């Protein structure tokens, strides 16, 4: 077999680049993201020194961002299969069967580092990237959700980041015409220098029409479609794998073009529907490099690309720059040979540029030609499958930081003091009404949003079917920081619980694992424990992980963020009559607590506010009980006796009850069947964030029957009181503990974010 001679001397477009010898002698591989050991491994695998382009390919594909080298061995612990799973991790997105001949593709991805540097474009391109991952599966995108974390809003830069991330999400999502239907926004000191921006996209497809990202069929032509390739975003992937966003270059952040993104989506869906597409993949992180190498790897074959044919934005781009560019809105498409004209006509209709840049080969190599020479020739397997895998050192045991924090005791005050505690929690930006955020998102385009932001889960109707999907994101870094294993499990449990409270059966999850520097053994311990906790919960609740990503190096100025796994959960509602919201519907309903009465303040926001830092352990969680609670509430909703339902989470029972009252404009009066020993226990009964608890509004006649049914199912349940009036009144056997007029609660809850942002006058809104 003829040996392909790889260009090793300076050639057109490569002048000024170091020679293979210089790369070695001057240790230039370090700036390409390869360690010395990794570089040696590349040399060994190639049997020669890599040239600059080749070293660059290995640098990005072996980066943490692309190779998951620090997380891979741990991610294997996740359950990833089940009868509902049509496509697990490894493709552009996971795909789940939702019945009725339909499937749903979904994935969540982080864009933390770019958003810390250039919040508008960082967030916008995060949305654009996850959108492409979903339509690449042949799925019509139907919803976005966003999980965001910022520092305290008292900080000028935080307000700048927050305002621009929200604007960027809206700027992209609104323009492409996909509703943003949910998500969460949390504010904590831990994220001050390192905000988290996790975007989730959900799409629907016919269950038997999934597209894949594999470059199959020797001789099939390879096309690049969409935007031209420019010099933007070079090194984005390696940039995301380095510490400290404040030291990162703004020029490494890409700029999004949502209009082009929309055209690309429509054209690709039309193209995929012809059946002539063999494989298709977004050019996301590491651009042409990762898309071509990953597509070839999935097919077990090779690719030969002629880089002279790549449409570029400017003259004089080198092969290195073309391969590493992260210019947005580009797709790599492998067509069935002989049906290229079909692609051309569809892309022409949408006004999109297309260029045939190469073909599929059978020799397992990624070969790049430029200006008449082979500028890279490397085994695909070495780039993708043989990327290094690290079992990074981890501390033997996690030192739970909250256990040594003095447990703060609230002063025993009068009813006004207790009402004030509740108001403080309602006005905390993490709990407060997020309308300031979501009114900047188009939540109702596509006219399928039955329940938008603000309830436990969003509910989106599936086209042409009398069924819907429920969608929620959840994650609590405070819990994971206090106890990574239990905190990880809670993230899954709570996301699933949100679906259940909305009338859905949970099916599967996607995740974004946002952690600090994995080279620190303490961070690695957090990661391993959190993954194990999540995996346990996934098994207990039958919600396999079908897609996701890992974001390490979320640290700045030596401070790691709270370890923050964020879960995006998907459930199905097979009968639209079962759609349930968290707003009280009417007066004189009975309020039932499903799940235990608990007074443990461990991990609660209440304790954090009192202590100035997270305190205690993570909140209590019993996964077996969690499963029983979720099964019970699903079956209760299906019997039609549940008017509204709300998960008890941040701020505990008192906040959950008040949120239901504010949302429904109906007060509530409840009495817990206990006499607290002291102020601490009373605070716990009100504000404990103990898990596995859902508040139900049911008709008065059903309440006692439901409690009996719960007992038979092994679930504690209690009739707490009833809805009505214009205040939230909570007490115990020893009398009324607090009375909070609904108007005051609403003012605190709805006013907090606009005030913090000094928002423009809220004209057009109900008076706060």
């Amino acid at each position, binding site marked *: 077999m003829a040996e392909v001679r790889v260009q090793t001397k300076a050639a057109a477009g490569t002048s000024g680049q170091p020679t293979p010898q210089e790369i070695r002698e001057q240790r230039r591989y370090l700036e390409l993201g390869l360690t010395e050991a990794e570089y040696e491994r590349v040399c060994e695998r190639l049997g020669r020194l890599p040239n600059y382009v080749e070293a660059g390919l290995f640098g990005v594909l072996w980066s943490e961002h692309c190779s998951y080298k620090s997380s891979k061995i741990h991610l294997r612990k996740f359950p990833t299969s089940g009868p509902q799973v049509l496509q697990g991790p490894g493709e552009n997105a996971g795909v789940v069967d939702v019945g009725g001949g339909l499937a749903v593709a979904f994935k969540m991805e982080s864009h933390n580092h770019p958003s810390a540097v250039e919040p508008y474009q960082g967030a916008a391109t995060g949305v654009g990237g996850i959108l492409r991952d979903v339509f690449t599966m042949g799925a019509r995108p139907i919803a976005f959700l966003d999980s965001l974390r910022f520092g305290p809003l008292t900080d000028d830069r935080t307000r700048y980041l927050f305002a621009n991330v929200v*604007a960027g999400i*809206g*700027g992209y999502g*609104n*323009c*492409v*015409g996909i509703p943003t239907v949910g998500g969460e926004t949390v504010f904590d000191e831990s994220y001050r220098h390192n905000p988290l921006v996790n975007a989730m996209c959900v799409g629907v497809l016919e269950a038997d029409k999934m597209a894949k990202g594999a470059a199959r069929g020797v001789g099939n032509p390879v096309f690049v479609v969409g935007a031209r390739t420019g010099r933007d975003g070079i090194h984005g992937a390696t940039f995301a794998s380095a510490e400290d966003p404040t030291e990162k270059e703004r020029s490494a952040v890409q700029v999004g*073009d*949502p*209009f*082009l993104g*929309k*055209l690309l989506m429509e054209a690709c869906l039309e193209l995929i529907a012809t059946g002539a597409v063999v494989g298709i993949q977004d050019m996301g992180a590491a651009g042409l490099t990762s898309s071509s190498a990953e597509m070839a790897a999935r097919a077990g074959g090779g690719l030969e690309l002629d880089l002279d044919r790549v449409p570029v934005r400017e003259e004089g781009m080198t092969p290195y720059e073309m391969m590493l560019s992260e210019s947005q809105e580009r797709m790599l498409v492998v067509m069935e040979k002989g049906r290229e004209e079909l692609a051309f006509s569809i892309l022409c*209709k*949408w*006004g999109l540029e297309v260029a045939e840049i190469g073909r599929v080969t059978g020799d397992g190599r990624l070969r790049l030609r430029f200006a008449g020479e082979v500028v890279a020739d490397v085994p695909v397997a070495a780039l993708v499958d043989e990327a290094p895998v690290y079992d990074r050192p981890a501390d033997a045991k996690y030192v739970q930081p909250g256990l040594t924090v003095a447990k703060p005791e609230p002063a025993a005050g009068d009813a006004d003091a207790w009402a004030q505690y509740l108001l403080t929690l309602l006005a905390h930006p993490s709990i407060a009404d997020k309308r300031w955020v*979501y*009114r*900047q*998102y*188009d*939540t*109702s*385009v*596509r*006219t399928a949003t*039955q329940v938008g932001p603000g309830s436990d889960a969003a509910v989106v*109707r599936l086209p042409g079917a009398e069924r819907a999907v429920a969608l929620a994101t959840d994650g609590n870094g405070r819990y994971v920081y206090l106890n990574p294993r239990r905190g990880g499990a809670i993230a899954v449990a709570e996301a699933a619980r949100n679906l259940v409270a909305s009338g859905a059966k949970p099916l599967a999850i996607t995740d974004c694992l946002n952690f600090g520097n994995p080279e620190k053994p303490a961070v690695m311990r957090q990661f391993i424990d959190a993954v194990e906790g999540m995996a346990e919960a996934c098994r207990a609740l039958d919600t396999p992980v079908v897609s996701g990503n890992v974001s390490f190096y979320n640290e700045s100025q030596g401070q790691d963020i709270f370890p923050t796994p964020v879960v995006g959960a998907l459930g199905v509602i097979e009968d*639209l009559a079962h*759609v349930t919201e968290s707003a009280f519907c009417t007066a004189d309903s009975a309020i039932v607590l499903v799940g235990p009465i608990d007074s443990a303040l461990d991990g609660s926001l209440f304790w954090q506010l009192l202590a100035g830092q997270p305190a205690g352990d993570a909140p209590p969680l019993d996964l077996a009980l969690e499963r029983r609670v979720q099964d019970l509430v699903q079956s209760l909703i299906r019997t039609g006796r549940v008017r509204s339902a709300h998960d008890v989470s941040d701020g505990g029972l008192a906040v959950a009850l008040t949120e239901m009252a504010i949302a429904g404009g109906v007060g509530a009066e409840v009495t817990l069947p206990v006499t607290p020993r002291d102020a601490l226990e009373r605070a716990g009964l009100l504000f404990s964030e103990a898990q596995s608890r859902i508040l139900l509004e049911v008709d008065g006649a059903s309440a006692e029957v439901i409690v009996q049914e719960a007992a038979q199912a092994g679930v504690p349940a209690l009739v707490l009181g009833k809805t009505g009036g214009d205040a939230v009144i909570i007490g115990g056997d020893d009398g009324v503990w607090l009375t909070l007029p609904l108007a005051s609660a609403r003012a605190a809850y709805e006013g907090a974010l606009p005030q913090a942002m000094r*928002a*423009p*006058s809220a*004209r*057009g*809104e109900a008076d706060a």
Partner: protein
Amino acid sequence: MRWAVIVFPGSNCDEDAALAIDRVLGDPVDLVWHDRSDLSAYDAIILPGGFSYGDYLRSGAIARFAPAIAGVRAAVQRGALVLGICNGFQVLTEAGLLPGALLVNDHLQFRCELAELRVENAETPFTLDYAPGARIRIPIAHRDGRYHADAATLSQLQRERRAVLRYVQNPNGSAQDIAAVLGANGRILGLMPHPERAVAEWMRSTDGARMFTSMHRYVEQQGASLAASAEGVGRLG
């Protein structure tokens, strides 16, 4: 009667509009690509919401050059109804088919919420089925929705009752709370709210449906379908 929904590159409420017509009326409706100028087969034409051409340059500024807009002008001459929703309203003002302009909201943010509107004129082809002075709720979703016109135009609109809908609480700084503007010939309406998003109980409002039923009733009352008389084809729907 037969409806057309024009699809520009970047339109994203085109399918919603077609779905609403199907849901509310069951009339035949075609999605018509922007490069088509012959719209003589249609009794009503909708310019849908979205971001035609990315709203680059100005909202609606590029779409107005599309061949379909020439078709819209001809249709108006012929007596067809034209409804511009959100981006469609912006296109109509850019095309000079409606007076005024839509500027960026005074608070500079996108705003999506259910807006309360007052029906100021229930004697137009678009509002026949509303009670005069009725308060209705229809969602808005826009960043460039602040209606602007010079004083003379505003007073003319007032005089001729062509500010057909006004916001009860102005969400964007629009002059005189104007949410919808009727063309001088009475057969073109542009509005920022999205009636196609308020046609079912589960959408939280059904108030948008009456805009489509109004248009349908108006066309039916005109006797034989306009398209049928012009084209000599059988009556459709």
